[in-house]
């Protein structure tokens, strides 16, 4: 096989425009990136303009001394940053130089279905050797990304950031702007990963409970409770250590295409407000991201402005994006530390006042354990069955502050101002709207979250392809997530997210569609309502123009990042007029979570779990929006 090795020169030739900042970035990284990798993954040069050309090709990718073929967009991993302007007409010409079919999907963008880029749903894919032209009006702004939607290509390197600058000025200020794109790289092929998991569900888990841990547990909680606990999990044929299907055993975790050794670095000057556009472009990995020594002010979620929230740590589901502003003041290196949810690995980068500095890597945490709550069993039942009372087994549900997050916002006074104005107008807006009666009388800013009370599972066990059901499902948006409960850090919660401005469509959903997330870890089967994509004969039908509630019930013991194409999911997190808009939502184990969708985009849209191998195993549906 012959691989094209792209020279730095030809790479630069393709750059249509360079922002000043990006130019500085390029210089900073030119030296180390070239010695470190064949490609230059860390340059944040942006492509912009009315017509943008992208080329998909196979290239050699080097990582920490190993080299392997990868699939790249314009010869880079991640691919080039695309920078568009809200209101423009975008023309993206994608040439496929692979020997197989490919595609590009613009993740989170509202666009006509034919240019959504999902083979088999919106088009046939881009044939080998051909060019496909995507053309669409840019109707939104914020941080997004794009990736292949064909087989395992995304995991092999086909992902890149997309920034859309707004027409109106941003409601927050910053002096520096960096994309921080997290991803996972394996030298094994996606097919090998899936095949290994189909044959042994726990193939990549090297953090199972072994004898040593058992004796430690005996010491901590006593012989009989420990035996009971181990027997209970064995009895259920479940593994409480199952937090990631694919782990650091095979993955190297990347930040802007660089490994922890490569150490992506961003410069700041004293007093700079630095905007970090955090994108989880991993195929299979949830990251917990923090910057020790810095508070992060979340200003956007999935590209959409939110009322600022100050946090210490973020859990990023696959495909989610968050924009945060940090204000490093000390003359030192700050580590951006993204540890995987299962704690089997991490990636890191550094914010530095001067090039060549490297921050300290924080202590690694131990992997958490699943509890009875993750199984959807009631508390009492859990106790009876000998649930462990260690810190990990606890779930803290932080008290909700009815006045919102205003109290938490420190710094960024401009932010606060806009937040207050929006609050005011929003409330007025709300008074005109029909309401959920009774429940919110005493608490004007919060409405009841659907699924706030546990709901018992129906009689349907979703067939052989589903291992268990959550006997009781309940909303868990107020929980930080397993492994982050008792850290003492302020972790972003879904209930913290409030849209900056109310969305025009404030109708109460007129209809509810309940979708169960199902799967079988032993056989590595993943599905909705117990049916894989190929077994589901009908698409999920939504009437054009209706406001519909999608309720997701997670019957599995894993977190799933669900992604709906073409339309926003308005996360029903109790914020009334300010429901945050998301393209991807994490549904926790045994959680019941609802989103409202305004069906304003006729056509066929993909809806799937964004864990690539779950999708490929069948956790995928077509949503049809039509007039009937």
């Amino acid at each position, binding site marked *: 096989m012959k691989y094209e090795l792209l020279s730095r020169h030809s790479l630069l030739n393709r750059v249509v425009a360079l922002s000043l900042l990006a130019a500085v970035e390029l210089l900073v990284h030119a030296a180390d990136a070239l010695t470190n990798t064949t490609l230059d993954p860390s340059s944040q040069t942006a492509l912009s303009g009315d017509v943008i050309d992208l080329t998909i090709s196979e290239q050699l990718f080097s990582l920490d001394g190993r080299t392997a073929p990868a699939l790249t967009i314009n010869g880079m991993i991640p691919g080039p940053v695309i920078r568009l302007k809200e209101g423009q007409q975008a023309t993206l010409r994608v040439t496929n130089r692979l020997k197989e079919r490919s595609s590009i999907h613009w993740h989170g963008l509202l666009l006509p*279905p034919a240019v959504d880029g999902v083979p088999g749903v919106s088009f046939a894919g881009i044939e080998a050797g051909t060019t496909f032209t995507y053309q669409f009006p840019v109707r939104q702004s914020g941080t997004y990304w794009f990736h292949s939607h064909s*087989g395992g290509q995304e995991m092999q390197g086909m992902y890149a950031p997309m920034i859309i600058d707004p027409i109106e000025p941003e409601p927050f200020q910053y002096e520096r702007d960096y994309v921080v794109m997290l991803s996972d790289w394996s030298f094994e092929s996606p097919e090998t990963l899936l095949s290994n998991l*189909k044959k042994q569900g726990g193939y990549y888990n090297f953090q199972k409970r072994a004898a040593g841990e058992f004796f430690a547990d005996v010491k901590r909680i006593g012989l009989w409770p420990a035996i009971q606990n181990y027997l209970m999990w064995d009895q259920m044929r479940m593994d409480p250590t199952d937090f990631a299907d694919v782990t650091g055993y095979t993955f190297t975790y990347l930040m802007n295409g660089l490994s922890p050794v490569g150490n992506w670095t961003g410069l700041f000057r004293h007093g700079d407000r630095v905007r970090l556009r955090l994108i989880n472009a991993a195929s299979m990995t949830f990251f917990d991201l923090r910057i020790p020594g810095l508070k992060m002010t979340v200003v956007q979620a999935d590209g959409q402005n939110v009322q600022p929230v100050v946090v210490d740590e973020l859990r990023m589901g696959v495909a989610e994006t968050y924009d945060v502003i940090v204000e490093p003041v000390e003359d030192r290196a700050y580590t951006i530390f993204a540890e995987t949810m299962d704690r089997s690995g991490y990636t890191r980068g550094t914010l530095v006042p001067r090039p060549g500095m490297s921050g300290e890597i924080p202590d690694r945490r131990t992997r958490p354990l699943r509890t009875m709550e993750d199984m959807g069993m009631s508390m009492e039942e859990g106790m009876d069955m000998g649930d462990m009372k260690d810190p990990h087994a606890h779930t803290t549900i932080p008290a909700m502050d009815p006045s919102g997050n205003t109290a938490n916002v420190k710094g960024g006074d401009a932010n606060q101002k806009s937040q207050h104005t929006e609050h005011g107008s929003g409330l007025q807006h709300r008074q005109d709207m029909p309401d959920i009666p009774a429940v919110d009388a005493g608490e004007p800013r919060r409405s009841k979250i659907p699924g706030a009370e546990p709901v018992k599972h129906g009689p349907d066990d979703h067939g052989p392809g589903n291992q268990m059901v959550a006997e009781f499902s309940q909303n868990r948006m107020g929980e930080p997530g397993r492994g982050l409960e008792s850290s003492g850090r302020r972790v972003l919660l879904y209930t913290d997210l409030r849209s900056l401005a109310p969305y025009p469509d404030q109708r109460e959903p007129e209809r509810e569609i309940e979708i169960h997330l199902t799967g079988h870890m032993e056989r590595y089967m993943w599905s909705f309502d117990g049916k894989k994509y190929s077994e589901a004969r009908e698409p999920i039908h939504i009437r054009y123009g209706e406001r519909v509630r999608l309720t997701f019930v997670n019957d599995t013991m894993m977190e799933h990042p669900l992604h709906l194409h073409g339309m926003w999911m308005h996360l029903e997190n109790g914020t009334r007029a300010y429901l945050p808009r998301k393209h991807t939502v994490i549904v926790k184990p045994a959680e019941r979570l609802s989103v409202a969708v305004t069906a304003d985009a006729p056509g066929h849209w993909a809806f799937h779990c964004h864990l690539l191998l779950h999708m490929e195993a069948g956790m995928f549906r077509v949503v049809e929006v039509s007039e009937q």
Partner: protein
Amino acid sequence: MNGTGASLRFSVSLFAMTLTLLSGEGMATTVIAGQSSSGSLKAPIASTEIEKVEDGKAAAGVFPPFASPGVWPPPVHDQAHRLFTLVDVLEYRPRIGGSQGNDDYRWDVEGWYGGDYNRLWFKSEGQRDTAFKADYDVDFQLLYGRFIQKYYDLQMGGRVETQSFKGSNVTRSLGVIGIEGLVPYNYEFESSLFIDQNGALSARLSFNKDMLLTQRLIVQTRFETNAAVQRVEKFSTGSGLNNLELGFRLRYEIRRGFAPYVGISLDRSFGETATLVREEGGNPSQIRFVAGVRMWF
């Protein structure tokens, strides 16, 4: 099989094209076609038929046409077939000082080809110089398996068993029905009911369970028992409980699919079977040390 699949797909594509031409709008919404089952994570190779349909794409309309998976490639390939082979036991059993018998070896292999629900299973067990009279005892099964219940595959098919004794072979074929799966408390479970060509019924039941000493150092406990309704003398099988076997194998997983092991195996024959074994000069109660390698791919 591939040939049939391809020609089926081809005819479906032709059908879709015909419909497309008839409707004249690039719409082929009524085609319901089975998806390619040979899929892997590789994006499917395009065929010319598909391209022609795509040419007629009328995506600009308010309600764009939705092509069925038969016309466009499916968005995901959730029906891919895979081949799995587990060499659970492949071992050498040295002769124990003072006891009768020779060094011998043994294997126990099983695997499948197929998807999530339907699989073609194959199983083979064999050993040399068994506790019974035979020099060799080799057993092969070919079964159709259907994933029927959360953790269980129902298996049906045939088995051939051959034993050789002092140079002469005896062979019989048997029908098999069985259930294999994972029972509560994480025991791998396999049960089979056999009926041979003469109508003699027998059964086999096995359990095994892994216990992790470390992430890679694992003890496998194996339990197997055989029973028969009729006495089949040429296979040294008495009626009633034939034997019990209990083994412990300590393996080290260098990789998940490659683990050398050492262990001990206790095998005891009972009742009529024990008598037959004794008559043939065998030892109905054996303790053997074993060393081998467990593999899967």
